[in-house]
């Protein structure tokens, strides 16, 4: 018990001590996670939409693959991307390894299947009469897509929120592609791993609590936006 109380106390002093290092770590985490989720949504939502509305041969297989990819272990993504981004790899020239952009690229790969899959599920669970009505009213495909997205916006937002939750809490990719560089690519999760490795369990727990609070904040903002949207 003593242990938890101490951790809670140090979490408190970390947050309200306004230590610039802690804030930079939180900022880095939020930055890479939101940008990766944003890009994954820009790509994933339209792909999910098309997959939900179109039938084609081999669709069941695509679905199975997408479902499998949702279980991607983060360290595997990290390792794969490392092989690409290392100076020995095909994309080494970009110099993305051990930069925030490198982490964001890995997180994008992680988030994409989740966004596609959950968008697809969201649209499939919509009222089928919607699709028919749109068509009968003579809407163009783009108009149809827009209407459907508006009608399913809660479920689609939920897809994005799930993806964001997955990327902000993962540690494997951030560690492998970011390298946990102090003042540059250290994120909340890699900082927790580092402090645990040093045996500073209280500090690790404290950072974990901050991570939870940040996730709470982001979700609160998103839910407010959802509600405000009439």
């Amino acid at each position: 018990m003593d242990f938890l109380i101490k951790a809670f106390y140090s979490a408190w002093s970390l947050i309200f001590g306004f230590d610039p290092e802690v804030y930079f770590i939180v900022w880095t985490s939020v930055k890479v996670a939101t940008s990766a989720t944003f890009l994954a949504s820009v790509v994933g939502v339209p792909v999910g939409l098309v997959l939900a509305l179109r039938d084609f041969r081999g669709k069941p297989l695509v679905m199975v693959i997408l479902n499998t990819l949702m279980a991607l272990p983060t360290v595997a993504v990290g390792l794969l991307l490392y092989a690409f981004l290392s100076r020995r790899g095909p994309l080494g020239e970009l110099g993305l390894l051990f930069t925030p952009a490198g982490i964001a690229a890995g997180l994008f790969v992680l988030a994409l299947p989740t966004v596609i899959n959950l968008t697809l599920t969201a649209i499939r669970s919509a009222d089928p009469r919607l699709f028919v009505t749109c068509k009968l009213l003579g809407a163009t495909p783009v108009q149809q897509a827009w209407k459907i997205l508006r009608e399913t916006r809660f479920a689609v937002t939920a897809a994005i929120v799930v993806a964001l939750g997955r990327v902000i809490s993962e540690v494997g990719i951030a560690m492998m592609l970011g390298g946990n560089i102090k003042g540059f690519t250290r994120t909340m999760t890699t900082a927790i791993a580092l402090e645990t490795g040093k045996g500073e369990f209280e500090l690790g727990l404290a950072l974990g609590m901050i991570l939870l609070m940040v996730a709470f904040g982001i979700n609160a903002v998103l839910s407010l936006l959802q509600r405000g949207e009439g």
Partner: protein
Amino acid sequence: MRKVLVLVAVFALLAFMTCSVGAETRLRMSTTTSTEDSGLLTVLLPPFEKAAGVKVDVISVGTGKALKLGENGDVDVVLVHARAAEDKFVAEGYGVDRRDVMYNDFVVVGPKDDPAGVKKAKTAVEAFKMLAEGKAPFISRGDDSGTHKMEQSLWKKAGVVPKGSWYVEAGQGMGAVLQMAFDKKGYTLADRGSFIAQEGKLDLAIVFEGDKDIFNPYGIIAVNPKKHPKTQYDLAMKFIDYVTGPEGQKVIADFKLNGKQLFFPSAAKKP
């Protein structure tokens, strides 16, 4: 709809900020966890960063991985502690200009009552034989770090193949392994720096120390620019000159944790 657009704009801005990499010069160094965890680098790097106007990015991992990153050309310089692996790294042409930086030593730590009676050992090898016979839990780093390599060479010299329920391969950093040794009332091999850093929090004591077999020298190596032309060789050499020069060596000698000196400069001696 406006809110959604605002949100999209914010996200896009964040994405842009992530991708714009700063223009400042960065030197990349992979190193072992012990140099960063002990806090040495927080005093060793700033004078160089200030004088040279660069930022040193530290990637702290086990020695095995630190060297691997050098092999792949992902870092400019490596600071590690595993002499045999370092020499191999240089011999295979991945690194150039290896220099001694500093040393400390490894210690065998265990429960204060010392159930395996290791305190009586005369040499490190004898201590390891006793550990194998005593069957008290032994927590191994198991992560190909410098400490792990040292531990393996000691088992080999003792003629023991560590196996069985008493031998725990943790696959974690020194801090976590010390914590595990404490929780399981077991023994482990630790570098003195990491142990001193955590001594106050753990009910563990040094049960064996002071044998030349468990001497722990650190070396610094520049990544070979002929293998990886994109690495910043000149800057790496400037950094090596600083660390092995009088200024860097003094910082190392003056660095203390809990009132104890952790590292002893050794650059004066030629390798």
